[in-house]
């Protein structure tokens, strides 16, 4: 059995790589992966980062990788699918469907038309492609790499300064970024071997590739973010550039004011009581969130940037735009 091992001559130990690379700002890189636990607002942060980069004049594309079409939802746009769609000035979006990416990959690999047609018609090919562990992830990362090329492989492909990836949630995220390395170790010959190596170099290249984690100011997301940063460093060889603490409530009331509001809530009825209760609830939340923010700062190595909770019924393009201004 062939397995990847950390002393494989092809690779430095991942932790070693993580230590040795220079840091550049997240938005000055070529590819930025945005990851984190489910439901923390990864897509919103990925889109906000895209808007920020676009506003700085960078031609930017935001990629979704699991056909959720959350980004198009933020833009109130029809589903984007496997196409590079312009969402705003300097800003594009694409939803990478692994099957489409596989198809495109085969088209680029096989120059003989008859062979391609035969392959696409063959049921066994799609069966094998589906059965090969990690192949979906590999072609998805391959497409991300292709988007980041200045010399695009795809005909008439646009050049982008920055590719932002709305990466899979924690757990799946680690496996996702590990795929090229696993493949390079398993596939010893052929195009996939060298391409997987190339993709792995992209992922651990700190100068050109960045990783941001999105967290929420709650117990479990903070724990998971700390674990994710550690696993990315030891298992993938990637250092996290930034952790975004999303959804932080403003501190609207002091402790002394909260006491007065507590008395008000106890003594009043109707709207006044409800308003006082809402204020107390906000005060308690804001306080426990600050404690979680402090915990996160203690537990991760990357710089932590707090993002405000947006009191919006639904997060749309305007809210993402306001978040974009706070990302710095």
């Amino acid at each position, binding site marked *: 059995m062939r397995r990847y091992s950390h002393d494989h001559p092809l690779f430095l130990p991942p932790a070693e790589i993580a230590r040795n690379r220079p840091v550049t700002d997240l938005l000055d890189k070529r590819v930025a992966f945005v990851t984190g636990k489910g439901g923390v607002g990864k897509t919103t942060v990925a889109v906000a980062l895209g808007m920020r980069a676009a506003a700085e004049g960078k031609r930017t594309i935001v990629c979704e990788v699991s056909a959720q079409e959350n980004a198009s939802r933020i833009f109130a746009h029809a589903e984007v699918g496997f196409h590079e769609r312009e969402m705003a000035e300097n800003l594009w979006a694409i939803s990478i469907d692994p099957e489409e990416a596989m198809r495109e990959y085969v088209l680029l690999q096989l120059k003989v038309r008859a062979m391609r047609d035969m392959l696409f018609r063959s049921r066994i090919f799609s069966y094998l492609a589906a*059965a*090969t562990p990690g192949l979906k992830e590999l072609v998805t990362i391959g497409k991300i790499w292709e988007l980041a090329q200045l010399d695009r492989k795809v005909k008439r492909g646009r050049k982008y300064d920055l590719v932002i990836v709305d990466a899979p949630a924690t757990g799946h995220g680690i496996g996702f970024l590990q795929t090229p390395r696993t493949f390079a170790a398993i596939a010893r010959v*052929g195009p996939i071997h060298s391409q997987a190596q190339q993709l792995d170099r992209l992922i651990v290249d700190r100068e050109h590739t960045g990783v941001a984690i999105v967290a929420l100011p709650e117990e479990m997301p903070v724990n998971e973010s700390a674990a994710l940063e550690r696993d990315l460093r030891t298992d993938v060889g990637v250092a996290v550039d930034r952790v975004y603490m999303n959804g932080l409530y403003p501190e609207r009331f002091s402790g002394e004011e909260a006491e007065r509001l507590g008395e008000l809530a106890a003594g009043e009825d109707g709207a006044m009581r409800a308003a*006082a209760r809402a204020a107390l609830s906000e005060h308690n939340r804001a306080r426990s969130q600050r404690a979680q923010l402090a915990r996160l700062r203690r537990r991760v190595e990357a710089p932590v940037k707090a993002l405000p909770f947006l009191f919006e019924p639904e997060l749309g393009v305007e809210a993402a735009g306001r978040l974009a201004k706070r990302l710095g």
Partner: protein
Amino acid sequence: MAAVDEILAGKDICICAGSGGVGKTTTAAAIAAGMAARGLKVCVLTIDPAKRLADSLGLRELGNDAERVDPALFERHGVEMKGELWAMMLDAKATFDELVARQAPDEEARDRVLGNRIYQQISNALAGSQEYMAMEKLFELHTEGRFDLLVLDTPPTRNALDFLDAPRRLTQFIEGRSLRVFMRPTGLAARVAGRGASVALSVFKRIVGFDLLADLAEFFNAFSGMVDGFQARAQRVNGLLSDRRTCFLVVCGPQGEPVDEAVYFHRKLVEAKLPFGGVVVNKVHYPAERLRGDGADLAADLTAKLGDADLARRVGENFADYQALAERDAGNIERLSAELRTSRTIRVPYLDEDVHDVAGLAEIDRYLFASSEEREALAAGRPPTAARRADTSRRP
């Protein structure tokens, strides 16, 4: 509206399903605790719970054995456990290995499967194996019949639908029927399929660059004696899921996106003829409609009462922000109930503190198991009274 104990009356199995980040694990634990408090012997099966929640229930690391939760933990928070609460933290890989060991005709066959690279990838990583193994464990516990009620917290799939589809996909893969016929070099199918298939295989091999086929062949060979056992079991698991004594609860949040996903998930449940029990909406902002519009003089009233115009202004702003969220939540929940054509929508408010301990579970249970009077109080923006219904304990 209904309470959880009404929905679960006469059920053996409660499956909490929903997308990631909506509080499934906490909901499953709270439901199990609430039903145990009402006299049942309940086991909650969970995957990767928050460490503090596990710690506070006195549970050790992952293990495939059910552990009894000390009732004193709940009694300390004023909850009398009339029944028993048990918990199990699932280890998907270990469950899969156990299953192989059980189905394998002999030790050699077992070791061949356990050592196969494709098997290792599948049992660790293939989307669906966690889900499949959760079902498997559920089936096993149900067959043993040690518990009155099993509550399953489904794995955190990004897309809640994977969960329904996973067992079928996994068994199909293990069966590998379509592939195996091609791999038999002298098989009739190979001759019928002719050159096309073998060229496809060789091209695939060239692109992928490793002999996947050899690994796959070995995998299916190793599994060959077990396929029937797996199939039969998968059918029985499916039978259990669609049984009328099983109940699916959809768990979601009040924002537009989780509500859309809950609607979609419900539709899939109905299509798959699986028994839908109700929907739990977590982290709902209260109050909503009752206070709309009567806040015109609020700023003046607050200023008069607090004697601080600046503080009054901030209280007013904060209240307006909350009401906007509460109205959004109310609108989304109305839409949810209409789309699901259900009155079984249970709202759990956005509490001031995270829920990761027994006190938090007890707090959530006040909403999940609220009586109709308590629900009225809730709708009016008052928390339900601490007095709990004591008349709902029952044993099947």
